[in-house]
């Protein structure tokens, strides 16, 4: 089976998944709410009083509001729409029907991940474009760095989707969504947890540390994004964080692959 053949099949399945996701009314609800939130990015420019925004310029305050709205709703869309789509696509009768066509199980897995990512990407594109229009309109300049800064959100979306698919391969129900949210929350507290670990007894410490190190460092990824957007200036080494994230993505994706590829 050639790479071109596999790629075409994955693309076809991803299109099918995209179609399923685009029928989800909840997604449009989240999109509208996120756009309303992004609209709030106008306020710092309209008020134009840095004292109200902890000394931040209107542009920085506006970017912070947009950043928050986009990331919150991107996470909600990924998790809620992801669970709903997986319940449709991974339904036994659908898998059996797809498997009767000339394709392999892993094509379905990759197609699903790719399809989910495509729909999240589209949401991201609409949200970031709206923020861009607002900021560009008020500053009367092209703020291309917004795309770079917000691209970290796409890496985060990849984490959310991979975690969801990973958990869904073990628990094919809404629990996978809850577990994904738990890991995301845990990812915020990684650096704080490390300080508390020293008091643990030695054998336990090793495993807990291993677990903590494995969790994606969501707070650092947000930090990188905010640095690029000029909201904060936090010293974070970008390369190790991204390397860790991609290794994490690769490992959980491989586990999902072996789990899903095993016929019942």
């Amino acid at each position, binding site marked *: *089976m050639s790479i071109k053949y596999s790629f*075409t*099949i994955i693309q*076809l399945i991803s299109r*099918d998944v995209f*179609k*399923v996701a685009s*029928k989800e009314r909840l997604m449009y609800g989240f999109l509208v709410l996120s756009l309303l939130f992004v609209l709030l990015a106008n306020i710092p420019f309209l008020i134009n009083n840095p004292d109200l925004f902890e000394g931040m310029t209107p542009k920085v305050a506006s970017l912070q509001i947009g950043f928050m709205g986009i990331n919150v709703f991107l996470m909600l869309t990924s998790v809620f729409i992801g669970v709903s789509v997986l319940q449709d696509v991974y*339904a*036994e*009768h*659908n*898998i*059996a*029907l797809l*498997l*009767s*066509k*000339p*394709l*392999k199980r892993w094509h379905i897995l990759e197609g699903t991940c790719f399809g989910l990512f495509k729909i999240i990407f589209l949401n991201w594109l609409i949200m970031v474009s709206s923020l861009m229009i607002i900021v560009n309109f008020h500053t009367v300049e092209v703020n291309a760095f917004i795309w770079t800064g917000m691209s970290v959100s796409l890496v985060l979306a990849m984490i959310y989707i991979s975690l969801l698919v990973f958990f869904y391969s*073990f*628990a*094919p129900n809404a*629990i996978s969504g809850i577990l994904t949210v738990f890991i995301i929350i845990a990812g915020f507290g990684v650096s704080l947890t490390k300080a508390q670990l020293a008091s643990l007894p030695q054998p336990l410490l090793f495993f807990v540390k291993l677990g903590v190190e494995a969790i994606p460092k969501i707070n650092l990824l947000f930090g990188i994004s905010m640095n690029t957007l000029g909201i904060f200036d936090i010293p974070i080494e970008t390369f190790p964080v991204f390397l860790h994230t991609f290794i994490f993505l690769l490992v959980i994706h491989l586990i999902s692959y072996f789990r899903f590829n095993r*016929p*019942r």
Partner: protein
Amino acid sequence: MHALRRECITAVDDLNLQINTGEIFAFLGPNGAGKTTTINMLVGFLKPSAGTIRIFGSEFSRASVEIKRRIGYLPEAAHLPTHYRVGELLEFYCELFFIGRKERKRRIDSVLNGVGLEEQHKKLIQELSMGQKRCLGLACALINDPDLLLLDEPTVYLDPLILEKIRTILVQLKKQNKTIFMSSHILSEVEKVCDSFAIIKDGRLLCRGLTRDLKDQRSLEEEFLQAIKKQ
């Protein structure tokens, strides 16, 4: 967390079947006998814990994609993706079989005409009746012009008119030397079209034979009931 712990049951045990090319084969048995499990193994959804499946002379586990290009499958219930229109779903399956654009249109029209859904081309699948969904399922199974058709309960939910149409399709396919493997509960229907049959219960093969041999002695229904009760 039901997926983490799965109870093991033997759904199909020591089943040995050989079906000849160009034959309409009926796979019969009461509910829970293992018919759907067998078909699920034939399409690669389930993996047999022991033994091998050979289709078109090749081992299924080694050449599944090549074999599946020549298989058409109609699942037990009309579980079709409801987010498609009739034509769109067939188009999607054509693409999965790498059927070219020009040929695609011809095939879609041909299978829809065959099952009597030519006027439902643009209808949403969720708007179809149960019988129409069954017909669409059959159209999907025929879209790649398969050499082997696996039909899981093809005659359920169908009115006599559609039954007649499906019977005609099956006979036409047989004339084209296609092999048909079907499971069914409607024994009178099976008797009309099948060349041979096998009866299975609790995953074990009870008996198999030729339909023409039955006609002189007793009906398939009588044979079925006797085999089940004897066990």
